[in-house]
C-alpha cells in the first residue's frame, strides 16, 4: 500500500460521493420518521377511527369501562392551557429580552440570561413537584382568592378553589416556555442593526420610541418565530401539566376548575390501557394531537410569511 498523497485524494470522487450520500440520507430520515409515525398512529387508532369517526373530536365522554371515547375536552384543554401560558409568558419574556438587549449594563446581561436559560434545563417532573408542593399552596393562599375577590364577576374566576386547575397548569407552562421565547427573541433583537436604533435616536426618539418604533418592528417576524417555538413546547408538555391540571374530562368556564390535555391523558392512561379500544382511543388522541400541532405550526408559518412580506422584517 502506498501512502495516499494529497493530489490523489483531491481528485478522488469517493469522499465527495460518500459525503453526499450521507447528508442525503440524513435529510431523508426526518420525513421518513414522520411518515412512519403517522402511519403507526393511524394503524394503532384504526379501530377507534372506525368506531367513532370524526364524532371523536366533538364528543365529551371518556369512559374506558364502557369503551366510549371523545376528545373534545382534551382538545380544548390543550389549546386553552397553551394559549394562557403564552399570554403570561410572552410579555414577560419580551420584557426580559428587551431589557437585556437595550437597557441592561453588560455586567448584568450575562448572568440574567444564563439564569433564565437554566430554567430550560430543569426536568419537567421537577416543575411538577415544585408546582404541587410550592406553587399550589402559594396560589391557593394568595393569588386565587385575590382573583376571585376582585375579578369574581367574570365567569373565569368563579367556583371552588382546589389548587390543581387550568390556571395552575398554565402558569407552570408559562415558566417552562419562558426560557425558549426569551433566548430566541433576545438573539433576534441583538441581530437588529445598531444603525436602526441610532437612526431613531438621531431623529429625536426616546429610548421607548426607538424600541417600539424601530427595533421591535424590525425583529417582528423573528419574535413571532420565538413565540411559535414556545407554543409548540406548551402544546406538547406532558408531565408537569399532568401533575397540576387536575385531570378531569370536562370543560369549565372557570380557570380554577380542573381540566385535561391530550398529552396528559396519554401519559396517564397509556400504560394501563387494558382493552383494545381504550388503547386505540389513546392512539387516536395522539394522532389528533399531531394534527393539531401541524395545523398550529402551519398557521404560524403563514403568519410569519405574511408579516415578513409586509416589510421591515428580517427572515425568521
Amino acid at each position, binding site marked *: 500500500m502506498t501512502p495516499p498523497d494529497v493530489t490523489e485524494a483531491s481528485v478522488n470522487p469517493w469522499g465527495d460521493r*460518500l459525503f453526499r450520500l450521507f447528508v442525503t440520507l440524513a435529510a431523508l430520515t426526518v420525513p421518513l420518521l414522520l411518515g412512519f409515525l403517522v402511519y403507526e398512529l393511524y394503524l394503532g387508532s384504526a379501530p377507534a377511527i372506525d368506531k367513532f369517526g370524526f364524532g371523536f373530536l366533538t364528543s365529551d365522554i371518556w369512559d374506558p*369501562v364502557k369503551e366510549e371515547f371523545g376528545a373534545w375536552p382534551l382538545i380544548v384543554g390543550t389549546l386553552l392551557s397553551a394559549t394562557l401560558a403564552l399570554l403570561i409568558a410572552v410579555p414577560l419574556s419580551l420584557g426580559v429580552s428587551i431589557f437585556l438587549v437595550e437597557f441592561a449594563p453588560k455586567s448584568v446581561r450575562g448572568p440574567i440570561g444564563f439564569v433564565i436559560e437554566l430554567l430550560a434545563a430543569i426536568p419537567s417532573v421537577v416543575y411538577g413537584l415544585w408546582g404541587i408542593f410550592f406553587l*399550589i399552596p402559594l396560589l391557593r393562599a394568595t393569588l386565587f382568592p385575590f382573583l376571585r375577590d376582585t375579578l369574581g364577576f367574570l365567569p373565569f374566576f368563579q367556583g371552588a378553589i382546589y389548587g*390543581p386547575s387550568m390556571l395552575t397548569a398554565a402558569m407552570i407552562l408559562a415558566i417552562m416556555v419562558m426560557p425558549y421565547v426569551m433566548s430566541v427573541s433576545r438573539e433576534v433583537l441583538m441581530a437588529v442593526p445598531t444603525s436602526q436604533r441610532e437612526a431613531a435616536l438621531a431623529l429625536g426618539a426616546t429610548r421607548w420610541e426607538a424600541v417600539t418604533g424601530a427595533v421591535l418592528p424590525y425583529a417582528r417576524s423573528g419574535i413571532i418565530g420565538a413565540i411559535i417555538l414556545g407554543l409548540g413546547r406548551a402544546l406538547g408538555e406532558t408531565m408537569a401539566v399532568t401533575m397540576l391540571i387536575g*385531570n378531569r374530562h370536562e370543560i369549565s368556564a372557570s380557570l380554577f376548575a380542573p381540566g385535561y390535555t391530550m398529552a396528559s391523558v396519554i401519559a396517564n*392512561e397509556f400504560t394501563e390501557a*387494558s382493552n383494545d379500544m381504550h388503547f386505540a382511543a389513546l392512539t387516536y388522541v395522539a394522532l389528533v394531537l399531531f394534527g393539531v400541532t401541524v395545523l398550529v405550526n402551519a398557521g404560524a408559518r403563514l403568519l410569519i410569511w405574511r408579516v415578513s412580506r409586509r416589510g421591515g422584517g428580517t427572515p425568521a
Partner: protein
Amino acid sequence: MPGLRALPTLLALLSLAAAPVAGQQILTGAGATFPYPLYSNWFATYGKQTGVRINYQSIGSGGGIRQFIKGTVDFGASDASMKDEQIAQVNGNVEQLPTVIGSVVMTYSLKGMGGRRLRLDATTIADIYLGRITSWQDPRLKALNPGVTFPKLDIVVVGRSDGSGTTFVFTDYLAKVSPEWARRVGRGTAVRWPVGLGGKGNEGVTAQVKLLEGSIGYVEMGYALANRLSFAELKNQAGNWVIPTLATAQAAAASIEWAPDTDFRVSITNAPGANAYPISSFTWLLIYRNSTKPETAAKLRDFLRWMLTPAAQAQAERLHYAPLPPVVAKLVAARLPVLRANGRPIP
C-alpha cells in the same frame, strides 16, 4: 485518506460490540408497577443467591398483559387478572400465580378528629365517590362516627387520574357493594369518575389530600404506611370494623373458598372473613403454562419455588406487602408441576 481507510476496522469493532454476549441467561419480565419495589428486591436477592438474572420492567399491568400476549417477555405481571378474551389470545397457555396481597386505604384530611380514625362503610364510600354524599355534615357520616364533630366543609373527592391496579381494586370493591356504581361506572384501571379531582400516582393523590382540608382519596397501603398518612377504619362484609394491616389483608385472602383446581383469578374485595380488610387484592405473575424455551421455563419455575419460601415471603412483609396465607401458598406450590416446556414436564 486515513479516515476512510479506518472505516472498515471501525465497522468491525462496532459489530463486535453489538454482538450478544453468549452464554448468559437472563429472564425478562414486564408489568405491574405496584409490586415493583418487592419484585426488584426479590430478583436482586435471588440473583445473588443463584446467579440467575431477572430483568423486570415496571411498565404497568396493561402493558404487562400486552407484552405477555405478544410473547416478547418470559413472564408478565399484573394487578388485575387476565380477562377471558385475553386468555383466549394466548390459547389458554397461561398460569396466573398470585405472589402477594396489596390493600387500598382511604386517606383523608380532617382536623379536629381528636386522634380518632374516620369510620366508613361500603355504601358510604360508594355514595361519596358517586357524588351522593357531598358534605361532611351528612347524617350518615355522623351516624358512623358518633361523637365526632365534622367541619362544615364539602367533601373533596380525589381519584387516580393515571390508569392503575390500585384503581381497579378500588372500583372492583365499589362495584361489588353498590349496584349503582356497577351500572354507572363499573370496574377498571381507569374509569369515568362521577365527581372529583384526579391525582397522578399515589403521590399525586396524597399531595392533593394533604393540601385540601376535607378531602378524601385512596392510596395503596404500603405507600400510606411509609408516608404515615391517616387512613379510615372500614366496616367489612361481616360487619366488623377493620383497619388495613398485613394481617387483615391476609385474612381477606384466607376467607375465600379455595377450590383445589382454582385458576387463582379470584377477587378478594369485600371478602367474607370476620377480620378481612375489604379492599384487598392479589397481584399476579403471568407464566406460560407450556413454554417453548425449556431452560427459561426451568429457571422461572425454580424462582417461583423460591418465592414461596418463608425467607422470601418475610422479605415481602418488610416492604409492607402481605404474604400469601398458607392455604394459598400451598395451592400455588401444588400448581408448579403443571408447568411444561414443549409439552414435556420441566426437569
